[in-house]
């Protein structure tokens, strides 16, 4: 009896301690408001501006030929330049190292390069020879660049003079400017630096962009300094320090404590709430990419379009997003996000209507429903969204089961088509990247991203026609027709549009997250 009493007292004491912690945790929000925006990012005494940024994973190196994962790409985006780049706000193609270009048939592209552009770290002046070297390096089998296939359509690269660069394509491609943008294979490297550093080039990148590498410690931080001779003039902030902080809660506290100025991406609603209430600036980009549910069309039941349409009517993805992730997700009605070139509103819309779903299932011959498996990663587990979808489907008779595997296994199974339904989110700025990848039979997995194994000759014809089309009006029509068919046959069901947040202190200006979820630090300043 006495033992029991003592145990009880101990639990009571512990509970009191916890409550105390909880209250003081809540009290800190007012403190947070005070710090938000008041502390300056200037290094003591020097007057030089230093920005401290959270980096959320181990860096994997910054060689454009083999770079991967969005956070690494964001660093490379600020070190390198392409012939073209993206406008941060609209996602449109704008000039970068190429001042202008000519193209009459979507097949021969002639670029006029900017003069007087300087490489970082004293590697001299940029010329067309650098572009030639960079693109040939991507194609060289020795480099084994995963992005070599992006230049599959290239007939030849030529550099007739130091400031002219000409690309001839095998087949016309109206979207070619995306291929030479400041992203992956499009980023220009310096031959001398690549040869000097050999295998270690990924940790010693040299570019022509606004920031150069000062120091990389792959287990703790990446330090960039501004490139004083950047062609647009030096960036406002002289030093960027990216500290690796993998845990979102830790990063949130670090921002509240003033240890960092800017938080690269947080993916948890509760942290966003905390920071918003504490008065931090919630820099965001909405609907940067659309999550798709991939139906394996080789599945005997899912191969019926009525079943897929029934699914679309059965689940209220908009309501799920509003209930579970009001900040991070929104409903989606098309394969492409609204801001993208060629996006069309004139596609079939599937309003939430369980009765209609039941009717469609009945027409398809599955009035009693069926069982289907959804492949997902153990990293995310069975999320609230997935559970709600399961409930919605149950109401119309579809029993959704989950198969959880670790991420590399997930990628492998998805590539090989070893799934019934799966999900995919592909950040892209180029309509072809989405439509070609998902709908063209050449890209049927495992060769490409067409995981549904969709093959409709009519769509294929239109996809190829739009590439060759020069007239913007006709392109728009073709894109609209493709989207209409895709949204009628529904090999992929758009579920959520994703939003990305980079919370910062109030005095950090110009954090614009582009449509690839990256930030151009040239535009960022500390007030």
């Amino acid at each position: 009896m006495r033992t029991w009493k003592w145990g009880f007292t101990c639990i009571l004491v512990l509970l009191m301690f916890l409550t105390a912690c909880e209250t003081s945790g809540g009290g800190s929000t007012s403190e947070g408001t005070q710090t938000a925006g008041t502390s300056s990012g200037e290094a003591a005494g020097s007057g030089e501006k230093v920005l401290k940024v959270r980096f959320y994973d181990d860096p994997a190196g910054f060689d454009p030929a083999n770079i991967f994962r969005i956070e690494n790409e964001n660093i490379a985006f600020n070190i390198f330049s392409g012939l073209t780049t993206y406008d941060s706000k609209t996602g449109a193609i704008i000039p970068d190292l190429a001042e202008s270009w000519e193209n009459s048939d979507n097949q021969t592209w002639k670029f006029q390069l900017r003069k007087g552009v300087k490489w970082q770290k004293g590697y001299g002046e940029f010329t067309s020879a650098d572009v030639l070297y960079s693109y040939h390096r991507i194609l060289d089998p020795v480099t084994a660049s995963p992005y070599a296939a992006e230049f599959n359509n290239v007939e030849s690269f030529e550099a007739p003079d130091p400031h002219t660069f000409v690309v001839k394509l095998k087949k016309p491609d109206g979207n070619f400017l995306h291929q030479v943008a400041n992203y992956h294979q499009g980023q220009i490297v310096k031959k001398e630096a690549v040869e000097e550093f050999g295998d270690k080039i990924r940790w010693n990148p040299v570019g022509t962009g606004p920031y150069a590498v000062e120091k990389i410690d792959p287990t703790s931080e990446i330090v960039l300094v501004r490139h004083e001779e950047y062609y647009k003039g030096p960036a406002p902030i002289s030093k960027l320090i990216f500290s690796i902080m993998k845990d979102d809660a830790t990063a949130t506290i670090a921002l509240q404590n003033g240890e960092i100025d800017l938080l690269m991406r947080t993916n948890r609603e509760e942290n966003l709430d905390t920071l918003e209430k504490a008065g931090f600036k919630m820099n965001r980009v909405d609907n940067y990419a659309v999550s798709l549910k991939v139906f394996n069309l080789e599945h005997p039941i899912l191969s019926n379009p009525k079943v897929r349409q029934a699914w679309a009517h059965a689940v209220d993805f908009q309501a799920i997003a509003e209930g579970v992730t009001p900040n991070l997700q929104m409903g989606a009605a098309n394969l492409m996000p609204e801001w993208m070139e060629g996006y069309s509103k004139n596609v079939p819309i599937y309003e939430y209507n369980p009765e209609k779903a039941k009717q469609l299932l009945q027409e398809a011959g599955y009035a009693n429903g069926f069982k289907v498996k959804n492949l997902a990663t153990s990293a995310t587990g069975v999320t609230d969204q997935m559970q709600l979808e399961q409930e919605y489907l149950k109401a119309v008779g579809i029993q959704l089961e989950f198969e959880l595997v670790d991420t590399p296994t997930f990628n492998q199974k998805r590539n090989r088509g070893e799934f019934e339904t799966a999900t995919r989110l592909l950040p892209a700025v180029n309509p072809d990247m989405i439509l070609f990848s998902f709908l063209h039979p050449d890209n049927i997995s495992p060769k490409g991203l067409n995981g549904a194994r969709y093959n409709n000759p009519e769509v294929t014809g239109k996809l190829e026609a739009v590439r060759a089309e020069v007239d913007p009006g006709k392109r728009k029509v073709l894109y609209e027709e493709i989207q209409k068919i895709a949204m009628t046959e529904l090999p992929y069901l758009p579920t959520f549009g994703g939003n990305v947040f980079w919370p910062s202190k109030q005095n950090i200006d110009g954090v614009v997250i582009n449509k690839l979820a990256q930030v151009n630090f040239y535009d960022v300043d500390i007030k």
Partner: protein
Amino acid sequence: MINYTMKKGLQLFVTMFGVLTLVFFSIRLIPGDPAAAIAGDSLSAEALEELREKLGLNAPLWAQYIEYLKSILSLDLGTTITTSLPIAGLLLKALPITLIIAVFTVLLSVIIAIPLGTIAAFLAHKGKKALDNIITWAAMLVDLMPSFWTALLLMLFLSLNLRLFPASGAISFDDPVMFFMRVAMPILVLGLTQIATLARITRTAVLEVLNEDYVRTARAMGTSEIIVVFRHALKNAMLPIITVVGLSFGNLLNGTVIVEFIFSIPGIGSLLVYGINSRDYPLVQNVILFYAFVFVAINFLTDLVYKKFDPRVQF
């Protein structure tokens, strides 16, 4: 003794060989490979195949195995596949950080837990159930608290509210003050769990010994209670305590993944998790080889310490 050392040496060799073989093949049994990890979401099968070829993943398994044995025999740990960083360098950088955390955690727990456990045992022995129960219950509660939760609580309390320690920041020996500020919270979190486990083991071990005849004899001879408990009882109860300390030191040396993750500590645990997630075969193989080495070495040291406390132990 020489005989014993040789025997242990041979054991070390056999264990390490077994571990490296097992790890070599088992990591390849998991679906996915480094190429797939690098490729991630958006790579064509063709490009993936080329990447495999370049990374040497298309060679027959036995050829890869022999290559690996050769590199180990020449003491070359190689570089990681996904980031081409020297593995020996990564281990050497992570080791001191993990080592310092492990040593301080063990010191902290030994200094607090052993007297605490001994006192609890003494109280129990004397029939003072109440105080003993507080200690035992508290130890059990702390022991059962998951470390990620304690870590977050400490972070909220010590970092956000009291601003005692930073939640983030570089860990570098160039700045020793900052270094200790950064490792203080991990040591506290890990120490709490260690203290709880160790205190309970100590209590049980000492309590058992307190009923032995020689303790009664010591008392009968008029020896003071403190000397009876700490010299006669505790010393003789040391063997299980040493085993636990040794084992937990081994565990700590191999890094504590969750705590390292939360506090952004670039220790050995983080290294292994990174290796597994990116299917970086050489990294995983060599980090686990290091784990095996640590455990065999700690066992050897534990045996040596046994002899110090119990001269009857024969090698």
